[in-house]
């Protein structure tokens, strides 16, 4: 039987277990968010000729940085670009992931091919975005691309995937390639949790596999689809590594090709931390509004809170 003293000791236990996580959370998540918000409202005032230590002072800027960020001629094009990119990547990636998961599930008994396909499609998750962009970047080069060879063998002119019109699709393909397998595994795992007996009566009633997929399986994996959608959305709006890696291979990618690249340029190439902070707050807010808005729209809580 626990005495009062051990019970008293135990009251502090959960806090002790939580302490490292909470300290790190405060230092590397909460504090940076607050600091970014603070920086976005500050600016440097240069007095005199701007020489000497005292001539540059930081003052409150109000919403100046936000106005500057939103009216920057490079900003809106980068937002539209990422919007179009997201409209290509997220539905294609999740559509393929769902399709492959359903096919794997319907093929449950066909072990060898299913296993080979599952591992192959999941494999790109092990390839960092930088390396994936590097591999595809070379494959896009007209001199290297086997697809171009094939198209030219048919007597047609192969498109240059790194031209202005097609770069967006070239980058989107890298993201789809890298992300489909992981999402497929998540959806497939949810499908496998369903006992096959659930489908059997539907089969006996003569329902086709397609009808079973549409009426039973997809509703069952809906929570997984919602989660993968939210995670994909957040990742998509922050696209950075892919275009940064393709830049040396494709002169069609500017330094402000995506909003995050603009944040990087403002902060580190132009030393304008205030504009960079304002832009990153805008992107973060937009991401939050979109992901929470989506979760509201589908009427689900973000994560299951009960066990």
């Amino acid at each position, binding site marked *: 039987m626990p005495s009062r003293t051990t019970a008293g000791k135990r009251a502090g236990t959960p806090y002790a277990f939580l302490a490292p996580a*909470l300290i790190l959370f405060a230092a*590397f998540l909460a504090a940076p968010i607050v600091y970014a918000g603070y920086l976005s409202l500050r600016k440097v005032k240069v007095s005199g000729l701007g020489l000497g230590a005292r001539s540059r002072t930081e003052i409150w800027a109000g919403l100046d940085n936000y106005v500057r960020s939103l009216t920057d001629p490079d900003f809106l094009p980068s937002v539209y670009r990422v919007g179009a990119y997201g409209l290509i990547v997220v539905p294609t990636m999740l559509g393929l992931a769902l399709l*492959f998961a359903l096919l794997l599930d319907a093929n449950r008994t066909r072990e060898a091919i299913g296993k080979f396909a599952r591992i192959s*499609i999941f494999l790109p998750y*092990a390839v960092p975005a930088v390396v994936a962009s590097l591999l595809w970047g070379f494959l896009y080069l007209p001199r290297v*691309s086997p697809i171009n060879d094939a198209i030219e063998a048919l007597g047609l002119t192969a498109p240059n995937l790194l031209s202005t019109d097609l770069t967006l699709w070239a980058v989107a393909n890298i993201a789809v390639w890298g992300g489909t397998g992981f999402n497929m*595994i998540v959806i497939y795992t949810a499908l496998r949790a369903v006992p096959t007996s659930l489908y059997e009566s539907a089969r006996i009633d003569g329902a086709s596999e397609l009808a079973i997929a549409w009426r039973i399986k997809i509703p069952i994996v809906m929570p997984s689809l919602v989660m993968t959608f939210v995670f994909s959305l957040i990742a998509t709006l922050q696209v950075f590594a892919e275009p940064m*890696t393709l830049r040396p291979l494709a002169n069609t990618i500017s330094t402000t090709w995506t909003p995050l690249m603009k944040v990087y340029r403002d902060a580190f190439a132009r030393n304008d931390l205030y504009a960079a902070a304002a832009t990153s707050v805008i992107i973060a807010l937009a991401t939050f509004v979109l992901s929470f808005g989506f979760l509201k729209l589908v009427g689900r809580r973000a994560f*299951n809170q009960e066990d």
Partner: protein
Amino acid sequence: MTTTLKRSPIATTLLLLGAAYCLLPVLWVLIASSKSAGELFSTFTLAPSTHLFDNLVDLAAYRDGLYWRWMGNTVVYAGVGAAVSTLISAMAGYALAKFEFRGKSAVFNIILAGVLVPGVILAIPQYLLLAKLGMTNTYWAVLLPSFISPYGIYLARIFAAASVPTEILEASRIDGSGEWRTFGTVVLPMMRTGLVTVFLFQFVAIWNNFMLPYIMLGDDKLYPITVGLNGLLNQGSNMPSMYTSVVTGALVSIVPLIALFLTLQRYWQVDLAAGGVKA
């Protein structure tokens, strides 16, 4: 039951097409690594050559083995970062699942919100805060931010709730075992399967990360492989002979992670929404 399953050739074809699409770049890098600099852009793309060993020697010789240092750094960042993060997540997840205390739901909701925080808003202030502490351009600049993973805590809480029976904790307490000893000898072993998953998630996230080390590090001796290869590719645009090293480096860099994936496959069967592992 198996007889009622339709084995449609269309399904098999689609799966194999998907597999081919996913394997194409991997197959290409395997073949391209065997080509000399002259052959890379001249011979047929999918025709292998015989220079793989020469390319590996060149890669290893690049600036006194800088490439291997990048690989070593990546193993340190991902290995240490994921190990510490998993332990911290396990402790926090266990506390949230198995104890009643004031502020519990507030803590949990804050951590849930953390899962949805986009990294973009963190990068610059993290850099500035670490710069104030004089820690940018050190191993710590990459390690410290990767120790905290709200998603890891979220998963660990579900694993603790599902795999640690309260009666066993009570029995251990009645036996006079201290809370930390109980955690180390009873709770951690029970959560093992789930914690491997948390570790793998964080390991891959750190291994694949580009923006954080790209911003934090200036000294190329501290680079992880992603930032190193990005730099090599940039040099290649002025010095095309570098391209064989870039391609060979890309191949070597994905070998360890692919090996890790194939051996630990079952731990990836995660139900993201429910959090359960089907092991």
